[in-house]
């Protein structure tokens, strides 16, 4: 393959990455099977790779790909009687569609309909019948438009592992007959939580890699932020979706400052804040404001958001009504993602580490711990309290976690304990704790940092 062909192929694949999620979503609704829809979408990609380099990219490439995908579905049904029987109604609809769409491919479908299909795809990729690993792989593949090879590279596992996860996930969805539908009102909150968690896990894997020697993998962070933004566009009335966007934008702003030139980790308090990306900070603030507005809107008795009026899709209206109904009085408080974003925003507002408003941050952690009473949140709350009320107050909270044996394998527990002991002048104990933390750290860059601290204190 010469260079020009290679360039053309990459150009077609770029269009593909942009269009694939909507294409697969639309085809899944038509044929009712995610695996088959993906095969059809791949066929459309192959057709594009054959035609576009010579004919040029069509004016509406998404509609072109969809038309080809539908035609392939028709071919398949005509060729294979099994499919025809299984997809009887689909076959009739497609034959009709085929007759009306003869000639130049490229009729655009109704925009709200496409967005609803995309949202259905989000929910099916993050469905609770799937393992968290499968949800992650499927989400990156179907919604992030990543190839199996790209996902494997991001997670430092063999490509075959990811391919197998995706195959199994699709089989599970088919076997369990998971419908391609938006969740019912009563399960919306839980299903949405699963979606947000998948995106957050993807971001975190990029932000503090659990494996390998590199401390961060920014590409994975970027994929996660993009997914969060897409979700915010699909569910503009959901406060927590905007909360997640805000959190990820704000954390992204620090990506450039979190790694030293030699690849070692730089912790928040030591970062050069001049290297924080101001644009991502401002985007984070804006998303946090949208989160607040959506929360107040949902809590209002007869709230009807402007975005709902703009979007006339029936499902979109139903969704907005669901969201309003779900917002009972107890849910008017900011959710966990909005609270974590507010904490990140408080850090972003401090021009120097010394100017950090720890009182506010401790208060936000109190609220977060009330909703999300996990040991990790409690540990972070201890850090904030130690800054607001002194290291002794923080250590008391940390020691409660130690006594409860709440985080036996979490390296940050001894690391935080060590920091507090240093501030209390108990250097020997601190050194031992840093060594213990280094032993538990799974990430090379982080381990180096902890060993360095232990050495400074004369331990190790």
């Amino acid at each position, binding site marked *: 393959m010469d260079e020009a062909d290679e360039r053309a192929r990459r*150009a077609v694949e*770029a269009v593909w990455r942009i269009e694939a999620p909507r294409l697969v979503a639309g085809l899944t609704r038509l044929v009712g099977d995610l695996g088959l829809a993906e095969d059809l979408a791949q066929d459309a990609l192959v057709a594009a790779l054959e035609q576009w380099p010579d004919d040029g*990219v069509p004016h509406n490439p998404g509609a072109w790909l969809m038309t080809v995908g539908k035609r392939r579905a028709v071919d398949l049904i005509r060729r294979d009687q099994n499919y025809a029987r299984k997809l009887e109604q689909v076959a009739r609809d497609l034959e009709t569609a085929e007759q009306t769409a003869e000639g130049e491919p490229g009729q655009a479908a109704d925009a709200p309909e496409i967005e609803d299909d995309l949202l259905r795809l989000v929910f099916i990729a993050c469905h609770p019948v799937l393992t968290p690993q499968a949800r992650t792989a499927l989400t990156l593949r179907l919604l992030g438009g990543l190839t199996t090879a790209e996902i494997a590279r991001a997670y430092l596992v063999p490509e075959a592992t990811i391919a197998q996860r995706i195959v199994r996930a699709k089989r599970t969805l088919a076997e369990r007959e998971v419908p391609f539908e938006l969740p019912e009102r009563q399960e919306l909150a839980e299903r949405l939580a699963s979606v947000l968690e998948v995106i957050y896990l993807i971001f975190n894997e990029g932000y503090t890699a659990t494996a390998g020697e590199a401390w961060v993998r920014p590409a994975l962070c970027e994929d996660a932020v*993009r997914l969060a*933004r*897409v979700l915010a*566009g699909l569910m503009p009335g959901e406060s927590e979706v905007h909360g997640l966007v805000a959190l990820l934008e704000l954390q992204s702003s620090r990506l450039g400052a979190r790694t030293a*030139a030699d690849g070692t980790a730089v912790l928040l308090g030591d970062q050069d804040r001049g290297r924080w990306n101001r*644009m991502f900070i401002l985007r984070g603030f804006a998303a946090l404001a949208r989160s607040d507005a959506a929360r107040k809107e949902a809590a209002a008795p007869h709230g009807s958001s402007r975005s709902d009026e703009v979007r006339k899709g029936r499902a979109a209206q139903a969704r907005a009504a669901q969201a309003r109904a779900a917002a009972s009085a107890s849910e008017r408080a900011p959710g966990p993602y909005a609270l974590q974003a507010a904490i990140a925003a408080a850090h972003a507002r401090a021009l120097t580490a010394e100017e950090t408003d720890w009182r506010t941050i401790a208060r936000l952690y109190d609220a977060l711990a009330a909703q999300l009473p996990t040991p990790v949140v409690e540990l972070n709350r201890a850090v904030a309290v130690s800054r607001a009320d002194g290291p002794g107050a923080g250590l008391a909270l940390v020691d409660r976690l130690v006594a409860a044996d709440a985080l036996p394998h979490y390296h940050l527990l001894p690391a935080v304990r060590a920091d507090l002991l240093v501030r209390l002048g108990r250097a020997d104990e601190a050194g031992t704790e840093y060594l213990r933390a280094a032993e538990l750290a799974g990430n090379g860059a982080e381990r180096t940092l902890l060993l360095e601290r232990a050495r400074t204190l004369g331990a190790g």
Partner: protein
Amino acid sequence: MVIKPDFANSPAGPDEELMTAMGELLSEMTKAGVLLDTGGLGPMEQSSTVRRSGGKTTVHDGPFTEAKEIVGGFALLQVGSREEAVEWTRRFADVHGDEWTLDVEVRPVMEAS
């Protein structure tokens, strides 16, 4: 994206049709999570030029007289590849009618390191 219309061979400004089409595209780009920021630049009469040359910094009202290329606007995208940036830029160029002549330069933003 650095948007550089050829003002000698283009309308004085975007008409309603172009504004609508561009608005739709920018909204699509926002929903796809790729558009971080965008803006159009004001008229040349309101521009000032700060010039550094021969160890001296001078300030002029108006554009630098020798400038042949005039920047009309910008868009900052976050994408996975150069090809993806080019594809969105192609779509941006495409919404302009036949009466427009413009170059849109696609350049990477250097990562701070």
